[in-house]
């Protein structure tokens, strides 16, 4: 029996504990057999976080603030973006294939951010490409840097 079951602890008899990392580790072990040294075992899963704030990066230039949100796997029409009273709200639902064949899983991205003073909310614009949502929020005229000539 010993020789027939060298991998039982990893692959067979341990019941799923509800810990996503445990399950994904088992997936790797099935896939990669006896090469654990090459496992990227703390690689993360696409499906298990329920409400997740997307990774974002922010820039400022003379005319605007620009936010870039990482939202892979969506279509532009599935993203809801709202700016109201100095707050930017973003929500989107992503569908992914689940581990069970032919079924779907989904999770949502959700985030609310306070915008700085002196922005022109009405002229904000956004675009979505290659999984990145770019939001451009123009500065109000009075907040732009102004050169002052020295006489």
């Amino acid at each position, binding site marked *: 029996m010993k020789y027939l079951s060298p991998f039982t602890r990893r692959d067979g008899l341990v019941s799923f504990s509800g810990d996503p990392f445990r399950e*994904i580790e088992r*997936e*790797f072990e*099935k*896939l*990669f*057999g006896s*090469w654990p040294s*090459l*496992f*990227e075992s*703390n*690689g*993360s*899963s*696409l*499906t298990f976080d329920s409400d*997740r*704030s997307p*990774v*974002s*990066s*922010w*820039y*400022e*230039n*003379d005319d605007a*603030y*620009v936010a*870039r949100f*990482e*939202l*892979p*796997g*969506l*279509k532009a029409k599935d993203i809801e973006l709202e700016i109201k009273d100095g707050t930017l709200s973003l929500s989107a639902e992503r569908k*992914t*294939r689940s*581990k069970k*064949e032919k079924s779907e899983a989904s999770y949502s991205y959700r*985030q*609310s*951010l*306070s*915008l*700085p*003073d*002196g922005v022109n909310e009405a002229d904000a614009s956004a675009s979505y490409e*290659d*999984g*990145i949502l770019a939001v451009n929020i123009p500065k109000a005229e009075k*907040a732009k840097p102004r050169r002052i000539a020295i006489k």
Partner: protein
Amino acid sequence: MTLLNILSKEPASNEVADKKPAKTQTRYFRPRYQILDTENAYSIEVDVPGVAKSGLEITLEDGVLEVVGNRSWKAPEDWKSIDNSYSEVAYRLRLAIGDSVNDGGIEAEVEDGVLRITLPKVEDKKPRKISVK
């Protein structure tokens, strides 16, 4: 000026992977990914937001699949970054796939920042039913 107050921002979910030797200065994130195991193939889905088709390099060498994703967008020089995100860092994922995959049949496509790689299983790795007499 008021600093942007980013509410409920979680720490960057991707850790910074190892650095290459100093000469290239390239830093990598390990992207999020999941592996789906179906009867005939493994399917790997990798989140690579910001990477277009032209920015992807996928290689298979000595049983190790390497995916490198370079972003197609860079902030113009006169833009000031106002948080310390890693968002301009390239992605790299290395997976040992051993000999369970039919190398010739590997296919990849990228859409909306998600890369899907399909790795067909070699015949003798497919599940086989053994009938009980």
